[in-house]
């Protein structure tokens, strides 16, 4: 199908979580007729099981549909999906770079939320034209007029004539489609210029190899062309070009300026085609690369170890493959006395960590042990040197430390006045410093706080939700480092120091976290033949202790009329349980014990 550049619309949908982004995407695909209803899964774009279960979108994906507008002409829509969670700002950013405009979905009953703002600003940073859509107007609590006004006041974009829709009920979708044609600009750029494409995603496929998702800004690429990856100078011959059907790859003759699609080439190493890189032609290269993306640094680190030490090479392979699609994931080998060989991995946030670990376990069939997540601390040593600390075990001796710094974020919390007190209390408990408070309207407040990152990586979201009954939203960005009184909390099991359980904590919280940790471990470590003390210590001084009592009795009384197999099965179960444990000194510690520290505040 030959379509001129001015009939292409490359756009994304941005929204606060749960405001209906995926549902609207489904409706657009449905209305553009690419899919019959029968083909439609509930949510076409979210095709990973994991995403479906969590109800959020993780990997950005693109889909191409054909829309016949009211003027009778056909338009190509390239809809590029973006993740909604704050942890994935980096991925949002790379999706936005491939678009020319964005549809902003706002829940007409909820209004503007913290992430609505964050996403709009991000889109504007990428020079995208944004137009709003008021969703969920069929809800009794919908207040489209009020929300339209709020959008104009808070964000400063025109919203009074925004389409009022219900993606769920299929109301107003036609109006959205027409707005996409009319309000989102056609791509600029020229097919006559040297080839210039941005890699915005990539996927490893066991059949096709590396599939590179790109947006062509200038020029034209066809199978057989030689292309160059500008970051590393690697050259390859294009094997296939194509675009994205719903959930499948549809080959085509070539991709020209303004188009969104994919290429495959015989790329052998998964790390060669990095997201954010510029692809050009070997024969006629463009002068300079596209700006790419801002390199995002991981904010949260933890150790990831295979439960079965023999799986180490498989874990490495799996991490390499995931990294291809997710440049924000970093890892390097490390060794733990307790856990053996593994990797120190860096993540954008705790949810990102959770998702990566789950993907490793599910897609790569690995059984993993992860250590307590921590942030990157700066350690200023007495010799004037500064080191960045990602693994608590590497903390220098106290005598060598001059002082330490911890990362702080500036956070915005949008909350209804009803729960203001509770949320302020929460922020204070987490060592927050209030930097601002604005009434957005009479019943809603935007709170601004500086918060230490390590206070929010564990369970801040959950606490926020429960204390505001879900009526608070939260967004944050890195602010910088501040000096802080920090100590390393060590755990000793049966007097043996367990490196994998150490973590850095604010001095005044050490006792509290230490006791919680001991209590948690007490519940996780099975009884042994001897008593096991579990201690938390700071600088060699024990600050909390629990005891796992010795087993006193473990007998199988009955004889079951000679049914020996039943007895044997019970013993086998007992033996099997032991195999899954890590030996620390003479104590067998189950994998769950290492995970339990992630959930210190759950009761």
């Amino acid at each position, binding site marked *: 199908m030959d379509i001129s550049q001015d009939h292409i619309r490359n756009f994304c949908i941005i929204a606060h979580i749960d405001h209906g982004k995926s549902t609207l995407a489904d409706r657009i695909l449905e209305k553009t007729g690419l899919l019959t209803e029968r083909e439609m899964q509930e949510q076409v774009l979210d095709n990973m099981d994991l995403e479906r279960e969590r109800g959020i979108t993780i990997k950005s994906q693109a889909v191409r549909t054909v829309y016949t507008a009211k003027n009778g002409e056909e338009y190509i829509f390239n809809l590029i999906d973006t993740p909604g969670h704050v942890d994935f700002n980096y991925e949002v950013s790379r999706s936005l770079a491939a678009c020319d405009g964005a549809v902003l979905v706002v829940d007409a009953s909820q209004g503007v939320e913290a992430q609505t703002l964050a996403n709009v600003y991000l889109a504007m940073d990428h020079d995208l034209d944004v137009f709003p859509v008021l969703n969920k107007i069929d809800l009794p609590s919908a207040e489209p007029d009020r929300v339209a006004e709020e959008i104009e006041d808070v964000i400063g974009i025109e919203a009074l004539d925004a389409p009022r829709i219900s993606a769920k009920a299929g109301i107003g979708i036609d109006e959205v489609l027409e707005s996409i044609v009319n309000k989102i600009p056609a791509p600029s750029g020229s097919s006559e210029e040297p080839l210039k494409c941005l890699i915005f995603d990539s996927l490893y496929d066991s059949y096709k190899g590396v599939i590179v998702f790109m947006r062509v800004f200038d020029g034209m690429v066809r199978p057989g062309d030689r292309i160059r990856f500008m970051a590393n100078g690697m050259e390859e011959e294009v094997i296939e070009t194509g675009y994205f059907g719903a959930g499948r790859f549809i080959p085509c003759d070539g991709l020209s300026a303004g188009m969104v699609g994919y290429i495959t080439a015989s790329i052998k190493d998964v790390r060669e085609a990095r997201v954010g890189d510029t692809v050009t032609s070997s024969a006629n290269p463009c002068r300079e690369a596209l700006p790419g993306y801002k390199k995002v640094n991981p904010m949260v680190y933890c150790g990831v170890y295979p439960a079965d030490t023999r799986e180490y090479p498989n874990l490495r392979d799996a991490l390499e493959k995931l990294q291809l699609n997710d440049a924000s994931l970093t890892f390097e080998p490390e060794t733990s006395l307790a856990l053996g060989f593994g990797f120190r991995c860096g993540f954008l946030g705790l949810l990102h960590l959770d998702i990566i670990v789950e993907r490793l376990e599910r897609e790569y069939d690995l059984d993993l042990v992860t250590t307590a997540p921590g942030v990157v601390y700066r350690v200023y040593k007495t010799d004037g040197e500064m080191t960045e600390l990602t693994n608590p075990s590497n903390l220098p001796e106290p005598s060598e430390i001059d002082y330490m710094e911890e990362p702080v974020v500036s956070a915005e919390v949008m909350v209804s006045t009803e729960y203001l007190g509770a949320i302020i209390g929460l922020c204070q408990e987490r060592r927050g410093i209030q930097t601002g408070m604005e009434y957005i309207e009479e019943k809603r407040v935007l709170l601004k706080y500086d918060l230490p990152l390590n206070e929010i990586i564990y369970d801040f979201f959950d606490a926020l939700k429960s204390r505001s009954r879900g009526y608070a939203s939260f967004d944050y960005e890195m602010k910088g480092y501040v000096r802080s009184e920090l100590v390393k909390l060590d755990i000793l099991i049966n007097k043996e120091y367990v490196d994998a359980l150490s973590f850095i904590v604010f001095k005044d919280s050490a006792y509290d976290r230490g006791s919680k940790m001991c209590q948690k471990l007490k519940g996780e470590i099975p009884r042994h*033949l001897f008593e096991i003390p579990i201690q938390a210590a700071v600088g060699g001084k024990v600050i909390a202790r629990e005891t796992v009592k010795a*087993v*006193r*009795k*473990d*007998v*199988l*009384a*009955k*004889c*079951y*009329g*000679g*049914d*020996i*197999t039943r*007895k*044997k099965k*019970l*013993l*086998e179960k*007992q*033996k099997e349980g*032991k195999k899954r444990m890590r030996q620390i000194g003479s104590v067998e510690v189950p994998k769950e014990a290492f995970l339990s520290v992630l959930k210190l505040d759950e009761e």
Partner: protein
Amino acid sequence: MRDSKDISIYVHIPFCVRKCLYCDFNSGKYPDYIISSYIDALLKEIDRCREVFRGRELASLYIGGGTPSSVPPSYIGLVFDRISDVITIEDDTEITMEINPGTTTDQKIKDYVSYGVNRISIGLQSALNSELEALGRIHTFEDFLRTYDIVREKGIEKVNVDIMTSIPHQSRESLIKTLDKVTSLRPEHISAYSLIIEKGTPFYERGAEKLGVPSEEESFKIYKLTQKYLKEHGYERYEISNYALKDKNGSRDNRCANNLRYWDRKDYIGFGASAASLIGYRRFTNVPELGIYIRDPGRHKSEDMLLQPKDAMAEFMFLGLRKIEGIRCDDFREEFGVRIQEVYGGIMKKHVEAGLAQFSGEDDDPGQRFYLTDRGLDISNQIMAEYLF
């Protein structure tokens, strides 16, 4: 090599007047026509196994359940008749029958004796009626006393009484009452089991806390107290849960011959639904479903396996170590052709060093035994698991 001449028979009667609240055995209340067709099926299965008994001697016979005394005694008579058809029952063969005090009459016991029963096992559990009620038992302590008298009256010289520990609301004081009352009767044998709350029982549904079972600490004390009390009253513990009255002149062995054969891995064949058998190195178990069993008795197995040497070695250990006297090291070599030290030396040493097990006699002593200490017996599951491969 394994002795293949003797064989024991177990007959399972899966019927009860009412199921106890803690029971997860294959048993229950069924209509009469099922009971009678089950008995027919038993007879048929025994008949089908005629070949197994050729050239063998009957070492012991045990009728268990369920509640064997809940079915008409004539049915039991039919079973005995059929067994005598396939193998000779000698006068001195131990023949045990389990009975429930709520289901026995003078006539029934008389009948059992006439069939040849010479050992009776009475399910008492507790001497306190409040505890019996909590367990969902159908009888009182007074019912038990009447039953016990009848059993003695009819000339039964070996009686076992089952008691249960760690039952809801049991205390050390209430346990002593039970032990007092039971031991004063001087039964030849006492089995003391601690209550295990099994999945699928009403007790499991209710949960340990609501039931008011003794705490772990109290449970352990109760368990220890039982051992001490019975020892002081002339009962010798010969297996984890079993005690035999010491005979004054030492001429009579009051241990349960039938159960010893399980721990010694001697041949036995089980008849009836869910009954288990060991013949040579073959272990097999009938299906538990009465309907399937009755349709084609003994044909369907829920399990049928040929033990490999490693399975058999593990069994040798985890069954043998249930006995207080433990295992004889030379028995291992005789059966498996390899010294026990070569297979289990490391683990045995570890257990000895941890004070959980001991050797008796020197390494070159053919009578050398290996057995668990008191502490080892307390946590025997953990130890036995280590002898599995």
